[in-house]
């Protein structure tokens, strides 16, 4: 059946349905009406799927920053530029601040994941916010007694709404991080260690049968895992810059302050299909890397570092970059 409506009118209806679904789950009657509308004409389905794709694409807005024009910044000017980026982010956070209350719709236990290069922000029903870094997966299991998040792999930052009677627990391997109301991140991307960075409040980290370790604001705890799991966790007091650096991914950025070229390339590789490899002799020739980069700007990073260190960059047909010495 073809409806008599024009493509434009169909698109208008599809947009209304999508906006309605985005506002709240459809009632049973609405759902039936929607199903009937979709079944009525192929173009209804097509218009609807197309707008859904556009809507999903808008999630990448998080990667947009006012400073995106200056994707590559020389090390000497890092702090200045970084501050302006941080200020822009703060405005966004402040705008959001007033809103996290009175959420009523419960969230069913659910799995969320991010693709390579994707950063995703989940607004939880209790007002907490989970931000997922590239290539990550979390399972959310909220109950009346606790708020459990399972970090299957990857990295997350958690801004927890206070509720003493309902602890917020992040599980990663054999480690749990328990909070009642605070902000912290858990990085489970390395096989040999788990990193918990706390920017606000206190969390309790339990690992196997050990006594819990308490990590407070401006501290980073590194828990050895895998083969290193018998080693003692390391607690380090961090500076504001160091914490910012750990959390720069939330703003679509990578911050380097003295990493080796290979380490920096490995960080980029977490966010991009296009991989950078550094030949051993290039790694030996390169000094330490500093600067602020957009996580997706593989090429900018490769070219900037090559230019700074007198190295060459070549590209294979898949767009992967190899950094080598010229000779």
């Amino acid at each position, binding site marked *: 059946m073809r409806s008599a409506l*024009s*493509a*434009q009118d*169909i*698109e*208008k209806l599809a*947009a*209304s349905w*999508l*906006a*309605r679904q*985005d*506002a*709240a789950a459809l009632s049973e009657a609405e759902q039936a009406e929607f199903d009937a509308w979709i079944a009525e004409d*192929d*173009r*209804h*389905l*097509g*218009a609807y*799927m*197309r*707008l*859904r*794709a*556009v*809507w*999903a*694409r*808008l*999630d*990448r*807005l*998080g*990667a*947009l920053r006012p400073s*995106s024009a200056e*994707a590559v910044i020389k090390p000497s000017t890092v702090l200045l530029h970084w501050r302006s980026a941080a200020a822009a982010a703060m405005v*966004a*956070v402040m*705008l*959001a601040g*007033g*809103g*996290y209350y*009175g*959420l009523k*719709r419960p969230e069913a236990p659910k799995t969320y994941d991010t*693709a390579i290069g994707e950063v995703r*922000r*989940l*607004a939880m029903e209790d007002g907490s*916010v989970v931000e997922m870094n590239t290539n990550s997966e979390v399972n959310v299991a909220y109950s009346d007694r606790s708020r459990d998040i399972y970090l299957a792999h990857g990295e997350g930052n958690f801004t927890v709404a206070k509720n003493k009677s309902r602890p917020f627990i992040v599980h990663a391997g054999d480690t749990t991080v328990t909070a009642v109301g605070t902000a912290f991140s858990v990085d489970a991307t390395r096989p040999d260690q788990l990193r918990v960075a706390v920017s606000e409040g206190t969390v309790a980290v339990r690992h196997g049968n050990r006594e819990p370790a308490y990590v407070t604001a401006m501290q980073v705890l590194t828990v050895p895992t895998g083969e290193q799991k018998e080693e003692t966790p390391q607690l380090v007091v961090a500076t504001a810059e160091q914490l910012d650096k750990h959390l720069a991914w939330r703003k679509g950025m990578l911050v380097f302050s003295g990493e080796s070229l290979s380490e920096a390339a490995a960080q980029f590789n977490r966010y991009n299909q296009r991989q950078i490899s550094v030949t051993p002799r290039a790694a030996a020739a390169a000094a330490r890397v500093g600067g602020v980069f957009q996580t*997706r*700007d*593989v090429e900018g990073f490769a070219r900037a570092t090559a230019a700074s260190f007198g190295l060459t960059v070549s590209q294979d047909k898949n767009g992967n970059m190899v950094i080598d010495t010229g000779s």
Partner: protein
Amino acid sequence: MDRDIDLWFAQNALPNEPAMRRWLGKVASDFDADDIVQEVYAKLARHRTEIVNVRAYMFAAARSTVIDQLQKRQVVNIVTVADLETLPVADEKSSSEQELIGREELALLQAAIADLPEQCRKVLTLRKLNGLSQRDVAATLGLSESTIEKHVAAGIRRCADWFAGRFAAEDLGPAAMPRHNRRGVR
């Protein structure tokens, strides 16, 4: 699950849409391109898991849709039929277009958002960048929930226009303005 499908469309179908529309403009200029695009997306939705080369599939689906509609017409323009045979199958050059990712896509998003009327832009930014629910956006902006829903609907359509390649992609930049708004956003 649903989100995977949306991302599949965003990554595989949307980037090919401008080229498909350009081709339709050439060979089927007397057809409503929006109409054909909707048919193509419906076919994609039904056959998504069987498709190997999405770009080639989209062109083929567009072509067969045009032919279907041609057959229902009383008078058929011979030129149109001949042109339809020149199907631009996925060529090497197009792979860059297929991967409208990274900076280019961000520029497109940026332009699309910048182009929205102010209130609509605020709503979409709070909803998508700050991750607020529509209800919280309503509370934050002091507007009714139904107004927010209308802004979301209008904003999606307007952004979709950008992804369709309706606005010149070459003058993307901070000052990029659409030269021909097909429709206003209320």
